[in-house]
């Protein structure tokens, strides 16, 4: 199976700027044939831009790409593909209403006379590759009906059908359960054994260490160094962030008080009547953090929307301090003492074209201290903003700057500052650190724990297992809208992974016990890492 056509890829001084912003600054990178080379960096460090340059989607401002020591120029993805480069994008590039075969054929169709499609040829190729790598992929299935893990394999097949000898995987594990991630790593190993080089892009240190032959770390568009997988997570994190970071949040054990927030038999349906949250019951006590874990799209969004009063079709009961929240409008829910950090801060959390000061009072603009007789009190709003910017360490020139100009981490601090300003009886944070730099993550996590420690019930919704393990006192796992169980915060990754794949807590624990795997994490062997 070993191929002879091994290739060496070299990037020399690649620079890519968008206007004044330099996304890639003289990046040098060498990928030897048949190696798995990881590109490690924070969100926004320029990894994806670099790979889009390599794939021909962007033209570099300066620098050159060499394949087997010969310079090449890509004016589009077809040139890159012709040179043997394949890419699995972070957001899959599959047409949902097409079949697997149609998606694989697209752009490189086999045809008979007069451009008539010959899908049978494509089906055969798919079956061959599926057999070789052990993928169970039906060429005639509609892509929109497939689970994400299988969709990802379709993307890999797409690249392999085009004889990709260098495969770029852009954040491939973001949408996978831990077990699916392990399977992907096996596949990567097989690909490598058959001579394919892989560029693996990630910000997850554990995965990078597990799978790489070599690691290149990128920070703010520049290569800051290379490391071998033996390097410790603390070293890698320090390279990635540019300073030493404390990877573990030293939080005290929870002191749970009264269970004041209760969700009972909650059902949330969509317009077609499908249950997106299916009969979920749980409660949260004062002074504890309940994390809601699960692969993205398993009902988490709908659960939080239901609590906030944003969803139309909700049945069951949601009570806070004995008061029924179901049926109340969003404003009433917020005034009842709920603080909420939405999962997409740029769409739901902030008005980007408003200033920081204005965003900080979006919920309180009609209160006496900020307005009188329908006119805003600019001075009070500015003063409030100065105080919050200082307290939450928002890095900005002025509180009157547009929120849209801030980095992700600083935007999130603004959201948190606003939501924590009210006296809270419940705090919900959805994806609190998605797309946030490591420095800000530390800060945000500490604030969330501080809120717990003053006795507020806290719910964290996160698809990042690392974050869940970091923060949670108890962990609820959602799968296909159903609650798979609530387990202690010290539960093992394996247990949570099985639950995220649809096993109940008891079944998952039994399966692990049979395999002799741990159900509870052993903190002494775990290295912490930033999410």
């Amino acid at each position, binding site marked *: 199976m070993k191929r002879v056509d091994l290739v060496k890829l070299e990037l020399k001084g690649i620079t890519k700027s968008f206007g004044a912003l330099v996304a890639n600054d003289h990046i040098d990178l060498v990928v030897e044939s048949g190696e798995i080379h990881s590109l490690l960096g924070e969100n926004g460090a320029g990894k994806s831009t670099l790979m889009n340059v390599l*794939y021909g*989607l*962007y033209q570099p401002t300066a620098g050159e790409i060499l394949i087997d020591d010969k310079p090449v120029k890509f004016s*589009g*993805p*077809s*040139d890159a*593909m012709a040179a043997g480069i394949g*890419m699995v*994008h972070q957001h899959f*590039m*599959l*047409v*949902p*209403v*097409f079949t697997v075969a*149609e*998606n694989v*054929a*697209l*752009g*490189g*169709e086999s*045809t008979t006379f*007069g*451009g*008539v*499609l010959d899908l049978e040829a494509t089906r055969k190729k798919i079956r061959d590759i599926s057999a070789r790598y052990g993928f*169970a992929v039906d060429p005639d299935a509609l892509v929109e*009906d*497939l*689970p994400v*893990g*299988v969709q990802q394999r379709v993307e890999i097949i*797409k690249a392999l059908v085009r004889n990709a000898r260098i495969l770029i995987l852009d954040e491939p594990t973001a949408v996978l*359960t831990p*077990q*699916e991630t392990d399977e992907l790593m096996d596949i990567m190993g097989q690909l490598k054994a058959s001579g394919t080089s892989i560029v693996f892009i990630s910000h997850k240190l554990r995965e990078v260490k597990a799978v790489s032959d070599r690691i290149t770390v990128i920070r703010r568009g520049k290569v800051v160094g290379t490391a071998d997988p033996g390097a410790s997570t603390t070293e890698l994190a320090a390279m990635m962030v540019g300073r030493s970071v404390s990877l573990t949040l030293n939080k005290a054990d929870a002191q749970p008080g009264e269970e004041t927030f209760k969700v009972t038999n909650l059902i949330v349906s969509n317009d*077609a*009547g*499908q*249950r997106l949250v299916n009969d979920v019951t749980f409660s949260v006590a004062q002074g504890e953090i309940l994390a809601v874990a699960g692969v993205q799209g398993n009902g988490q969004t709908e659960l939080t929307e239901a609590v906030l009063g944003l969803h139309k079709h909700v049945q069951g009961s949601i009570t806070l301090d004995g008061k029924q929240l179901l049926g109340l409008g969003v404003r009433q829910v917020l005034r009842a003492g709920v603080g909420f950090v939405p999962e997409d801060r740029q769409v739901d959390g902030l008005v980007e074209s408003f200033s920081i000061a204005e965003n900080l009072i979006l919920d309180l603009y009609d209160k006496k201290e900020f307005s009188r007789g329908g006119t805003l009190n600019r001075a009070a709003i500015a003063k409030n903003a100065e105080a919050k910017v200082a307290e939450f360490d928002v890095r900005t020139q002025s509180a009157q700057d547009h929120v849209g100009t801030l980095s992700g981490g600083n935007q999130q601090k603004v959201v948190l500052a606003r939501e924590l300003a009210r006296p809270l009886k419940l705090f919900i944070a959805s994806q609190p650190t998605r797309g946030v730099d490591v420095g800000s993550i530390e800060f945000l996590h500490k604030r969330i724990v501080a809120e717990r420690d003053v006795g507020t019930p806290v719910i964290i919704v996160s698809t990042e297992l690392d974050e869940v393990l970091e923060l949670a006192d108890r962990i609820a796992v959602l799968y*296909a809208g159903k609650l798979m169980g609530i387990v202690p915060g010290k539960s093992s990754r394996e247990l949570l992974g099985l639950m*995220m*794949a*649809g096993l109940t807590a008891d079944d998952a624990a039994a399966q692990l016990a049979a395999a002799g795997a741990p159900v509870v994490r052993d903190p002494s062997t775990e290295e912490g890492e930033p999410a």
Partner: protein
Amino acid sequence: MSAATLQESLTTDRLAVRSWRPPIILGVLALFAIVVFGILGPGGNATFRLSQDGDAWQVPNLVVPAQGFGWFAALICAALAVQAYLQTKNVGRPAKWVTMTFTVVFVIGLLVWIIGGTKTQNITVVGLFTGAMLITTPLVFGSLSGVLCERSGVVNIAIEGQLLAGAFTAALVSSMTGNAFAGLFAAALAGVLVSFLLAVFSIKYVVNQIIVGVVLNVLVSGLTGFLFEKIMKTKVNGATIFNQPAHLPDLPIPLLSEIPVLGPTFFRQSILGYLMIVLVIAIWFGLFRTRWGLRVRAVGEHPKAADTVGINVNRTRFLNVLAGGAVAGIGGAYFTLVAVSSFSKDMTGGLGFIALAALIFGRWNPIGAALAALLFGVAGNLQSILSLAGTPIDGQFLAMLPYALTILAVSGFVGKSRAPAADGEPYVKG
């Protein structure tokens, strides 16, 4: 996590979605049929004349007792409604054949009731269909133009303007050259020109596609109106020579044109009529069976995915919009080269917008759109026939029904009608 278990749970979830809407609607309609077609049904016979005088092959008239047939249709509808209820209860949704049969029986029952209620109690079926083709033909060309544009992701509101530009140009060029085919060619060019503007503004300059389309309609209407006044009404030696287009002759196909009803409707047409049928089939085959079609559909559904496999999204869209313009321009030529003898101001009368409705009703599928256009044509012509014959319900009300149906179709009531996902979304790289 195995794919199989997730697949399984998805299937069960989908089964769990049980909508009672279809059986309820069918039930109400069946009740309506029992009361109106049956209990209140008109006496006497309804006569459907299937042949015209002079046809080589005379088919006897179809005569049905109006009230008796009304009862018959109503009871079948009721039985089907019960069947739909049982199927919803047992498998979650009624089978397709149940709703289809129901629709057909109901419509026939409705027709018998209407004809039975007129004074003469008879209708010439051939006339109904041949007259319908006058509306259907431009509708089909218009909706095919829409299929070509929207499948690639560009909303074409300018069909109306393209039809009108085609009609005007065909009349002018045909009058000037005395050659109908020259007129036809010029009409296609005029349609392409309108499309070119749509493509440049909506694809290159990313202007809102709806707004560009609306503006183009107004522009073409104004421009053809102006030129109509300035050129076509100009008299040379006492005659308006620039509005006397040479016509495309009818080309009956031997034997096939003698088939009752179908023959006069489909096989006694001008070359445009046959071109229409060929285009419907060709565009359907092209879209769903060829490399070109796969790429076009990919561009309309997920342009970024198409881009990442090396397909030039905006060039594909540009070419499709131009092709759509040519098709609509040819459809416009039908007005002045076949249907009537000369151009008149705004003579397309909103058919371009109805073509859009046919496109949606036909679910962005050329064959579906053509069938929808046929339905709209028949309904439109039925209304004009009935307004002469004197009916129990107002002809204008009947004329409205297909469009009411379209609104229901668009709102997902009569089965899902899903536009290409990137329809109307400009594609900007990066």
